[in-house]
């Protein structure tokens, strides 16, 4: 019986499972069951996680945010129908590659901002108006959204941006000349600022 046990529990071929996984991605997309598709991409600021709902890109996460934890959180907040399904994120991956290569200044992607609410959402909606290579202070952004006293809340809105890089919170700096805090770490923020200054 032990012989049978061994044979029955040998792993199925990885090739077969990879092929079946792709089939599942396609079928789930066709049936409208792919609530959150995700993939990882490499970048000069480390591996990035990209996730999209049918409405648009909903999340970009740095490695230090822990991609597994981010996916768990998306399952809880949006839907547990989360599947690694790269094809929905092809355009986003391409635009990011162009951006990091210095060949793209503006992202042209449908965004799903449903992870943000209220004042944070308002700030994040205004961030793309800060152009490539430019920077603003937290105070200037507070003025931009018509709440000049809400400097700290602007800081929080930037720190909780679910779509860093694409929604350019890295272009908002403290007025003391330092890069300031950043969801991807200060070094990543500096890398993006250098990239945009050089192009």
């Amino acid at each position, binding site marked *: *019986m032990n*012989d*049978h*046990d061994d*044979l*029955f*529990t*040998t*792993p*199925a*071929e990885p*090739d*077969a*499972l990879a092929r*079946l*996984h792709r*089939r*599942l991605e396609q*079928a*789930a997309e066709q*049936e409208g*069951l792919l609530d*959150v598709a*995700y993939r990882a991409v490499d970048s000069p600021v480390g591996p990035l996680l990209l996730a999209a709902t049918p409405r648009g890109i909903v999340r970009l996460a740095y490695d230090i945010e822990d991609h597994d934890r981010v*996916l*768990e959180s*998306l*399952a*809880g907040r949006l*839907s*547990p*129908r*989360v*599947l*690694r399904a790269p094809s929905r994120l092809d355009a986003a991956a391409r635009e990011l590659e162009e951006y990091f290569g210095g060949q793209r200044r503006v992202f042209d992607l449908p965004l799903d901002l449903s992870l943000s609410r209220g004042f944070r959402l308002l700030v994040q909606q205004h961030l793309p108006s800060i152009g490539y290579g430019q920077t603003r202070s937290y105070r200037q952004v507070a003025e931009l959204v018509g709440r000049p006293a809400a400097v700290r809340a602007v800081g929080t809105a930037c720190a909780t941006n679910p779509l860093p890089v694409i929604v350019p919170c890295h272009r908002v700096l403290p007025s003391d000349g330092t890069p300031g805090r950043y969801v991807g770490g200060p070094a990543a923020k500096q890398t993006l600022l250098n990239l945009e200054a050089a192009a």
Partner: protein
Amino acid sequence: MGTKHPFEKVVEEHGGTVLRVCRVLLANHDADDAWSETFLAAIRAYPGLPETANVEAWLVTIAHRKAIDVLRARRRHPVPVGEVPEQPTGLGVPGTDDSGLWQAVRQLPDKQRQAVAYHYVADLPYAEVAQILGGTTEAARRAAADGIRNLRTSYQGGA
């Protein structure tokens, strides 16, 4: 709490076992179809699955029904074997010649083959197997034991 793991984790953890179960129940191409139907049905129903549920037993239960659907369709419209294109079977594991075992398993009577698949391949306890097959735990245990005994007689390879 209402927190459930991403469905991708379910595929990662149980995809291989469900494929082996499907391959015991069905021939290779049909096994792929049953696997696909199982996980498509599973992602549809996943948000409503109670958090305390045994995910593997749930998946095997779906696979059991999907395999029966596929078998019924085949028996109604048998595929003429001569028309199946030549292709690698992908059956079994590279380096081991176990295709004889898989064939022997598939020649078992339905109940025995199912009991063997759910207990020995999916590692479900007999109580769970009985739930899937409908019947008593003792009947499930007997079907699995009969299946293994029949396999020993019909299958000589492996050792």
